[in-house]
């Protein structure tokens, strides 16, 4: 029997949205930690560490999120870890996020004027203290708009993990479509839910950008 797209189906999509949010949050936390390590390595005083981080960023940004997903999904199972799809998906999205966040934050760290480094060195601050008290507080302000903007990309890219069987928003839309045969209506609703998550983030990103530019101009 072909079902109609009703309230029950709509509710199914809404409940599946929580997995989209779980994946986004997991990937932004784990990817954020990894990304910070990559960013710090990218501006390290050791040339080999800088080169390694640069290579990592190039590789992650040069491979589609889909292939990263397959690589971690099959690679981890080959290594003997039998992970559930949601864990494998979180790991691959974290790697994806770390490549982009690492690059964004590298730019933010490097855009702090060199004099700030020199001044804090002359005050005999250790490198850790320099980062903590001088460099990072300033770079966070610069990094905030592009970071929030990247979260939009992350939310959208969680849709590709539907292929390994995680029933998040895109996959649940497909399941509903298979039951109702009303593809246009179903996917417009799915797109609307994604939009409802992403648009506020986009607006926030733009807001931070304007605010930061106003700060700079004054």
């Amino acid at each position: 029997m072909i079902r109609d797209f009703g309230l029950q189906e709509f509710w199914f999509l809404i409940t599946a949205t929580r997995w989209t949010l779980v994946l986004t949050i997991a990937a932004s936390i784990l990817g954020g930690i990894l990304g910070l390590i990559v960013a710090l390595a990218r501006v390290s005083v050791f040339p080999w560490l800088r080169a390694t981080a640069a290579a990592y960023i190039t590789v992650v940004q040069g491979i589609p999120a889909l292939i990263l997903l397959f690589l971690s999904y099959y690679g981890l199972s080959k290594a003997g870890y039998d992970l559930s799809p949601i864990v494998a998906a979180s790991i691959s999205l974290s790697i994806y996020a770390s490549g982009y966040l690492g690059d964004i934050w590298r730019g933010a760290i490097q855009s702090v004027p060199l004099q700030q480094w020199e001044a804090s060195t002359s005050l005999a601050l250790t490198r850790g203290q320099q980062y903590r008290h001088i460099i990072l507080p300033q770079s966070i302000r610069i990094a905030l708009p592009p970071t929030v903007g990247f979260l939009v990309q992350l939310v959208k890219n969680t849709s590709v993990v539907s292929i390994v069987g995680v029933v998040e928003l895109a996959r649940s839309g497909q399941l509903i479509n298979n039951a109702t045969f009303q593809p246009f209506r179903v996917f417009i609703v799915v797109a609307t839910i994604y939009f409802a998550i992403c648009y506020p983030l986009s607006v926030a990103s733009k807001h931070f950008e304007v605010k930061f530019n106003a700060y700079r101009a004054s």
Partner: protein
Amino acid sequence: MFDLQFAPVIASLPALLQGLWLTVKLSFIAIVCGASLGLIVAMLRSMAPPKLRWPANIYVELIRNTPFLVQLYIIFFGLPSFGVKVTAVEAGLLAMTINLGAYSTEIFRAGIDSIHRSQIEAAQALALTPLQIFRHIVLKPAVQKVWPSLVSQFVLIMLTSSVCSFISVEELSGAANTIQSATFRSFETYIIAGLMYLALAIVLKVGLFAAGSYIFGRRTRKPLLPASAMTSPILKDAQS
């Protein structure tokens, strides 16, 4: 721990290369069409009075805030319910073009907005036609300014083409899916496919940056004096 066997994947390399070739074709067409679409929308938007800019803004925001996969599904599964039949490749191309169109509209808009009003006024004072003004005073400097962002976006749309494998387009990811299910060497297959994407991304980036510096030239001003004057030893000293 790892027991990697690349031999079965190497054996099916021709199929993978065929997929790579389709990825290249899809990306090329989508970049040409998408960038043109973006340029046209950005142009129309910049010429329209502020009150009539909302259609372009809505297009940009709607596309930029929804996943490519859902856009692809709407086109591939949704259009047939309106009687429009599209093949998987056509749907993929259409989705990529519309997607890139929105992103490049935003990039071109930033470039066009960065051109100062006085530049256009100066061009009008020199009696340039509106078309000449747009081409030489607005377009070229605008595109030059946003070229790096544009190149990143082109690379991103090439990577995004992998999602077309969801609707059974046999591009690089689709070919890799087929091969891994036949050989059971999934990890090895995706390593090779990943390396191919990486190579393509690097070639695209380097090539487009080279093209950019060829088209726009280096960002140096021409000397104010004619070249012949520069040979005079006195002027040379004065210059240095």
